[in-house]
């Protein structure tokens, strides 16, 4: 290839002068990656010694020997409210309540966080910036960390779980809603304004019809995500079925753990399917 250039007395392009096998840049990158992995192995000290294949298969098999006794009260001190299926329903409602709380907060805030509504004067522009930064901060703190912090306020239980989930979710829903408002067509706003309508009438007649479907779609999407997250909350003390899962693993009740995992998978898959179907019809 380089002959084409040398034969004509032209400078050979850089790309052709480099030999990929000896190019020091590439070799440096490869060496660095290998070095990081080597150091990482030393530091994290990953020990898989215990998990010989036979042992792993045995343990996995135990997870499938489902213990259906957790579906009914196991002794005279337990009621149906302590059964796994009830805990599962409670967990689904953790997700629903978290979505509801964040909807109520995010809905009005999202209008304040929409650029096309808030531009025009410096005060509203400042509010816009504050709201959007708040959304970003809320979003950037992981749900589990918020739940752990809330344990200090509410103690372990559903309150910490719901509000922890809602906290993060206000940031996500606020951003999604604001962007939906920013994405509307400005033409109808102009046309309705030109008929002599007041501000609220313009919002009602020209903005709302354009945002209802995206809002419903985003809300269902977040509901789906929250119900998916809810079973995990129990692991850090946020209530729901996660706590039961955590305990049964610690007590080596693998049959119970396996059944709970199965219930979670079925719930999440159902939510996923239903939410996708509804959202598809909303476009």
């Amino acid at each position, binding site marked *: 290839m380089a002959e084409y250039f040398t034969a004509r007395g032209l400078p050979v392009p850089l790309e052709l002068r480099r030999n990929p096998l000896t190019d020091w840049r590439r070799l440096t990158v490869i060496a660095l990656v290998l070095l990081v992995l080597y150091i990482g192995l030393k530091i994290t000290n990953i020990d898989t010694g215990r998990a010989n294949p036979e042992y792993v298969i045995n343990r996995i098999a135990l997870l499938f020997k489902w213990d259906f006794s957790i579906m009914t009260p196991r002794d005279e001190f337990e009621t149906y409210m302590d059964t796994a299926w009830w805990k599962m329903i409670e967990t689904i409602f953790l997700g629903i309540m978290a979505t509801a709380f964040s909807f109520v907060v995010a809905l009005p805030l999202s209008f304040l966080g929409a650029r096309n509504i808030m531009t025009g004067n410096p005060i509203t522009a400042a509010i816009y910036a504050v709201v959007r930064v708040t959304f970003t901060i809320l979003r950037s703190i992981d749900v589990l960390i918020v739940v752990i912090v809330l344990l200090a306020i509410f103690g372990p239980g559903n309150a910490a779980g719901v509000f922890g989930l809602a906290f993060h979710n206000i940031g996500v829903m606020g951003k999604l809603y604001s962007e939906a408002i920013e994405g509307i067509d400005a033409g*109808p706003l102009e046309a309705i304004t030109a008929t002599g*309508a007041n501000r609220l009438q313009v919002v009602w*007649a020209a903005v709302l019809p354009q945002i209802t479907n995206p809002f419903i779609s985003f809300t269902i999407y977040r509901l789906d995500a929250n119900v998916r997250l809810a079973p995990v909350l129990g692991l850090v003390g946020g209530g729901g079925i996660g706590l039961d899962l955590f305990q049964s693993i610690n007590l080596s009740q693998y049959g119970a753990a396996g059944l709970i995992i199965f219930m979670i998978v079925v719930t999440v898959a159902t939510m996923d399917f239903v939410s996708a179907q509804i959202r598809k019809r909303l476009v």
Partner: protein
Amino acid sequence: MPPIVSINDLVKTYPGGTRALDGISLDIQRGEFVVLIGLSGSGKSTLLRCINRLVDPTSGTILFDGIDVTTADRAAIRRVRRRIGMIFQQFNLVRRTSVFSNVLSGRLGYRSTWRTIASRPTSSDVAAAFENLGRVGIADRAFSRADALSGGQQQRVGIARALMQKPEVMLADEPVASLDPATSHSVMKYLEEINKKDHITVVCSLHFLSLARRYGTRVVALKAGQVAFDGKPAEIDERRFKEIYGEDAEEVEIGPDRPQPQPLAADGAEQVDPSR
């Protein structure tokens, strides 16, 4: 009779320094069909939007029926706006809702906010909506979604919406620029009808000079934010045309009412002859 719209030394400078209007003075009499022509960016849209103050002018005055639009407060400007209908190049319908509710929304300026939120149109408004849809020939599509209609039909919905205001002036911002020639004529004919039968003053910006000649009773040409010509359509000859559109422009006819023999390359006036 005093002019319905009286514009005096109007200047609009956009943030960033673009001087869209540079001292426009213009009197529009009741019953006129004024066509605004000029290159893109010559200030036609800005001028139209200053009349109902969708755009705030920088200086100068606009009197609408004796009311100073430039200094009117919010309530007063809304009362002026409802007497001025407007249609748009992109139709500006609420696409997801029905044709019927789009037409009804033309009445918002006369109705309380409560009635809007409760979705309770008065029976006279409902009757008027169907009457106006009938006038523009699409009463049978009243409950279709607005975006299910063709471009020409959507523009007719726009006209029906504006007619709901019982306007005295109709502003039309490039109403046919997104439409094919045959549909353009059908839309322009509705504007002509409301001008002649309902005596609504029409101020309409257009790209095609042939349309301006066919429908306008008066042509106002803008160039760089100033009035470059103001007179009868027939007075625009080759020399004036070049003054308005520049030396390189050549006029392309959009035939009145007859189908075009060859596909039109949209905008005639601004086009430079490709053979050069």
